[in-house]
């Protein structure tokens, strides 16, 4: 067993353990942290595939930004925002469902590998030495892919303007307690701070 495969298995175990925690954890914060573990594990696998840039982006964007956003949202919405799962299906049905989906995914992956190795006769083409390095990606980004790169900045501006336009409310809040706010209210009326949960919102309180 080479050091490379030890590294691979460590990353794989981190991914699977993180995914399990995400699904099983009762506490949503713990679930978000499980997701973090999965993301870091995947970043590790990218490193082993010589995709350094992808690994760095994976850590910066997913671990750095997305998970933090999840945690922010969870904390802003507070404990009252979480709905307990009400489904009372038997554990047998749940496990059977899980196994069924896993079987479909595994079968698809197996077929894809089969087809791909038949198309390439089992030989994957070798890549250039600096494929996936920060240098080569950067070079691509500022020469051939400049147009899409610049366009993505416009996409970001649109998202920011759109988020502000949707989140900003001009009207006074109606008398509804945070507990029976619907998802529509949360979407349009902005997040409810946990410290407000005790006091009912009155007609005078404005956003």
């Amino acid at each position, binding site marked *: 067993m080479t050091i490379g495969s030890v590294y691979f298995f460590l990353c794989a175990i981190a991914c699977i353990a993180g995914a399990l925690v995400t699904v099983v954890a009762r506490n949503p914060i713990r679930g978000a942290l499980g997701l973090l573990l999965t993301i870091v594990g995947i970043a590790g696998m990218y490193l082993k595939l010589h995709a350094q840039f992808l690994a760095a982006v994976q850590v910066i964007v997913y671990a750095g930004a997305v998970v933090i956003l999840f945690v922010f949202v969870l904390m802003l919405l507070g404990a009252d925002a979480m709905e307990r799962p009400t489904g009372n299906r038997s554990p047998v049905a749940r496990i059977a469902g899980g196994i069924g989906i896993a079987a479909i995914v595994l079968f698809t992956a197996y077929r894809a590998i089969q087809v791909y190795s038949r198309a390439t006769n089992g030989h994957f083409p070798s890549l250039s030495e600096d494929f996936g390095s920060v240098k080569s990606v950067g070079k691509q980004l500022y020469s051939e892919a400049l*147009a899409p790169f610049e366009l993505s900045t416009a996409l970001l501006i649109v998202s920011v303007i759109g988020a502000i*336009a949707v989140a900003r409310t001009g*009207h006074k809040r109606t008398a509804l307690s945070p507990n029976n706010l619907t998802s529509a209210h949360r979407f349009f009326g902005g997040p409810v701070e946990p410290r407000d949960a005790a006091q009912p919102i009155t007609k005078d309180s404005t956003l």
Partner: protein
Amino acid sequence: MTITIEDLRVLTLPLELSALLFLVLIADIATSSVRGKTFTGWLTFWGLCVVFGLTFVSPVAGEAFGGRFRADTWTLFMTRWFIVAGAVVTLGGIDRIRRMASRRQGEYNLLLLFSLLGMVLLIGALDLILLLLCFELSSIPLFVMAAIEKRKGQEFKLMLTAEGAIKFFLVGVVSTPIALLGLALIMGMVGDSSIAALDGATTSPLLKVGLLLLLSGMGFKLGVVPFHMWVPDTYQSAPAPFVAFLSTAPKVTALVALARILVSGLQNRSELWTPAVTTLCVGTLVMGNFWALGQRSTKRLLAYSGIGHIGYFMMALLVGDNTGMAMFLFYVVAYLLTNIGTFLVVEAVCGRSEDESIDVFAGLSRRSPWLAMSMLLFLLSLAGIPFVVGFWAKLYVFIAAWRAGYSWLVVTGALLAIVALYYYLQIARVMYMNEPKVKDPIAVKPSLAAGVLICLLGIVGYGAYPRPLLESARAAADAFMQTRSATVSVSLR
């Protein structure tokens, strides 16, 4: 590859649009009163008129970014019609947006311009990555525009808007990764992201899976059956002038993106995609038109009729050659003018009361005869009755499809056009036969009336004399079908 000033010269039209966008952004930041915010709407409209005028002054042809973007007769044709659609929708919507989203008018106009910028760039894109990014730029602003109205104290209406907007948003963001995965598989099988390289793809199951994923992702955006669930709900809950835009320009954009990949990119490999597109086409034609029969809400009825029209568009794409694309473009123009006009009339009639059931149209001919007549003409154009532009559009698509050997599809389409005639004329019957509940005429704002008038002149004018439009559509289609770099020329038609 280096980027030179020549590259930017090719991008003149999108850059002009971006300049207008910055002007509107600055105007929005600089003003704080409601009147000032309404000014951004007028700025958008007149700015778009100026950009439209500029398309006749400085046509540029050529390739930029190493062949990833091309400006030619085709981009000029489509840019003009997208700008017309944007300008008419802005003009028709100014009053509604001022009333219902007074503090957010600036954002609304800005997002409309962003969406237009994405569309204008998309039509010239010859690269899968650029194509997808442009498509996203054109569709993300729409999610926000659908949720732009927040009503004071009307809980039920608020919920309805929220429902429609969230459905639209969720379907939009879920379908993008599906299309993206499909594109990734296609790119993986081709080994290159340019459209010209698509022809050399090795036929493999993964390529087919990629195409299927792409079709279903785009199917959600287009609202073809069976991916149509969000369409009626979003149309019903969103402001009608916005629906006038949503039901036309973004659909055309999605169809153009599909056409770029399938019709132009895979033009010699049509056996790969025709079966799937034929299935979607038949399903959309049949179900869209039959579901429209039972609708009592005008907007929902028009939503299903719009779904049915996507079927005719796909029929034109199925032809898959220069003639088919020319007829597709003719249909695009007919559909843009007619549908925008119809929704603007719906706004004029139902906008104040926010009740959009067909009964609101009762006795419209006696209350506002001009409004009733324009609605009748729009409906006839949607149905494809002679001497309005919709007739020629359907006829040309049918002829092209018949010549390409899709006679059974033409018969299906013609039969369903008769079904469509029934529900379109139902509105006409209510307008002309039923007694009005209220006698006084409907007060229509001059801006809205002007928007309706532009569409009306367009459909009647092109209906009486379709030849100039047909010829420019043919020239544009010929330019579209050239994937390889060739001598790019542009004519000023």
